[in-house]
């Protein structure tokens, strides 16, 4: 049964060339505004107890969508129906008043959440305990840090379990310990049947918390469905710079990535952020990833062998060139890097005009995620290392987990195994 039904929702803001144009429209009823659509044709349903993540770049319409669902603003077209009591944390706050104390604000916010005075008062000790802001609870809100405001807002919104909980970016300002506390509470609510709508730029948090996701791009649904699939689509768009597929028929957007072949080539994973530089004696003309059978790919199942290939054109003769590669996480952290010198290879003098193909073969014992690859050719001059040609973030590799990855945290899948056995029983004496 659907608790949230968003049907063909669109939101347009009116834009007038001047205040006089607005006055003309009001008085003479001559339409003189231009509509700016920030949301269009958004349709989805959320079943009771489901957690749905809303993904999208800044300005994609996420916050507007949540405002419409929570009722803070109304859609220009279409409609959103929500059943049950809604608690919404929109953009760090609940409309707190700076001059009133935390307690007064909490009482008021509680009432606006549909609780009556006795319920709010009964919940206050718990709100105070959870927010854990000490004496500040009786200080005016203007003296709060943004983290404290968020603590209070979250505590009030979740003081009594709502049927639908809407959280817009709110958790990002809390410190790590409080965030964990919030996630624990959200997870507990989920088990009791609360439906969750969650906006965050923390894709890992969305994957962990949500069952499904909706990816908005420029106000339209670009992808929706199971959370992994949508997150992949979002990451491709975000890091790959590939064009976002805007589906006109919601719910039938692109086929799940996991159901395809074990490795394949996804053109959307083309990197948009590649940087090339070098002193120019050589040029890396092309670079690509291929499977062991020689097929060009950029999606691979974890653990498979992979070749990182590049062709180098020697414009000048070079003595002892060193070929190097590096594989990095999305955050730019190095996962693995090596070069021909380290591997004990030596190539002597390479004549001008020569073309070489370099192939690094690696095993992808990696957690499912996206990784970036560098390649380079350098030379060493009296201990000084100079890149003659280097391509940074030249390719994106998507590692998919067809078998379950053993990595809970971190980029490496060290194929962890667990064994717990009984060693006998202590009888207490």
């Amino acid at each position, binding site marked *: 049964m659907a608790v949230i039904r968003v049907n063909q929702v669109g939101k347009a803001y009116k834009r007038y060339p001047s205040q006089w144009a607005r006055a003309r429209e009001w008085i003479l009823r001559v339409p003189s505004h231009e509509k700016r659509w920030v949301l269009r044709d958004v349709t989805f349903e959320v079943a009771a107890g489901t957690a749905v993540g809303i993904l999208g770049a800044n300005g994609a319409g996420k916050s507007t969508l949540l405002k419409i669902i929570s009722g*803070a603003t109304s859609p220009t077209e279409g409609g959103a129906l929500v059943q049950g009591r809604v608690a919404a944390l929109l*953009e760090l706050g*609940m*409309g707190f008043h700076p001059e*009133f104390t935390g307690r007064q604000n909490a009482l*008021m916010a509680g009432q*606006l959440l549909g609780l009556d*005075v006795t319920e709010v008062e009964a919940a206050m000790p718990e709100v105070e305990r959870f927010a854990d802001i000490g004496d500040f609870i009786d200080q005016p809100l203007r003296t709060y840090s943004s983290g404290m405001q968020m603590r209070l807002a979250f505590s009030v919104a979740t003081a009594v379990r709502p049927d639908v909980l809407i959280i817009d970016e709110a958790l990002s300002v809390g410190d790590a310990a409080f965030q964990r506390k919030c996630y624990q509470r959200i997870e507990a609510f989920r088990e009791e049947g609360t439906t969750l709508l969650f906006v965050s730029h923390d894709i890992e948090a969305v994957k962990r918390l949500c069952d499904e996701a909706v990816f908005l791009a420029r106000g339209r649904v670009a992808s929706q469905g199971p959370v992994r699939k949508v997150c992949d689509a979002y990451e491709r768009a975000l890091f790959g710079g590939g064009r976002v597929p805007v589906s006109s028929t919601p719910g039938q957007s692109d086929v799940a990535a996991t159901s395809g072949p074990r490795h394949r080539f996804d053109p959307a994973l083309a990197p948009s952020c590649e940087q090339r530089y070098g002193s120019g004696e050589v040029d890396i003309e092309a670079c690509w990833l291929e499977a062991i059978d020689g097929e060009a790919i950029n999606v691979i199942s974890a653990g498979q062998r992979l070749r990182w290939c590049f062709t180098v054109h020697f414009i000048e003769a070079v003595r002892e060139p060193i070929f190097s590669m590096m594989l990095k996480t999305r955050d730019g952290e190095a996962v693995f890097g090596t070069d021909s010198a380290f591997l004990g290879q030596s190539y002597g003098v390479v004549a001008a005009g020569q073309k070489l193909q370099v192939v690094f073969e690696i095993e992808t014992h990696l957690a499912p995620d996206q990784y970036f690859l560098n390649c380079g050719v350098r030379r060493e001059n009296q201990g000084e290392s100079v890149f003659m040609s280097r391509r940074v973030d030249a390719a994106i590799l998507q590692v998919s987990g067809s078998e379950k990855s053993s990595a809970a945290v971190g980029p490496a899948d060290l194929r962890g195994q667990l064994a717990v056995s009984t060693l006998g029983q202590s009888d207490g004496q």
Partner: protein
Amino acid sequence: MPLMLKALWEYRQFILSSVVREFKGRYRASLLGAFWTVAQPLTLMVIYTVIFGQLMQASLPGHDQTPFAFSIYLCAGVIFWGFHAEVLTRMTSVFMDQSNLMKKTAFPRVCLPAIVTGTALINLVIIFSLYLVFLALIGHWPGAPILAVIPLLILQALLALGLGLLLGTLNVFFRDVGQFVAVILQFWFWLTPIVYTTHIVPDQFLRWLLINPMQPVVAGYQTIFLERSMPAFASLTLPVLVALIALLAGVWVFWRHADELVDEL
């Protein structure tokens, strides 16, 4: 309209506690607290009593023997005009003042005018009680006609509410309205016989004065407290009509644009 009333009823607790909180919050960081609620109109009354009542020897025909006649007359006007001005001023800016709340939470927007009216009513009750104490002390208790304050107040509140709803909604879209209201209220105050009496107004201006819907209302209060008799209810036809029109216009404009308000804040 019935929907708005229903929403008001459902959110009555929120409205009530907001009024209380607003009242408490207004003087939070002040030492003398609620005294300031009284101080401003009190100053006004003292100044006018001294200047007009004493220096200018203003006297009211037929009340030469009544002690403090001018003060009684003046306060009746100032107190209830104060309510009118407060509701109008605060209504004009209420949606902007509460923009943070409106942007982040969903609640019937019609609660805000109710909170404004409620807060203004508390202020009125405080200063009006002082006035009654003053009347009792000087032995000029109005007696039964005091009950006529209730219908007059309801009429006055509806007029201010209707105008306030209209102007407050318009002000979100055209910020000129707020400036306009501040200017108009000054004129309106001096075009209402509060500080002066109708007797001193030349005849050719008198009929212009009488198209002011606040004039019969204020005159009503003055009659109750000075003459200690029922006001002429027939004279209230104009204010009743204006209040109804203002209320209809206010509710209509608010109803049509309530959804757009938050997008403009």
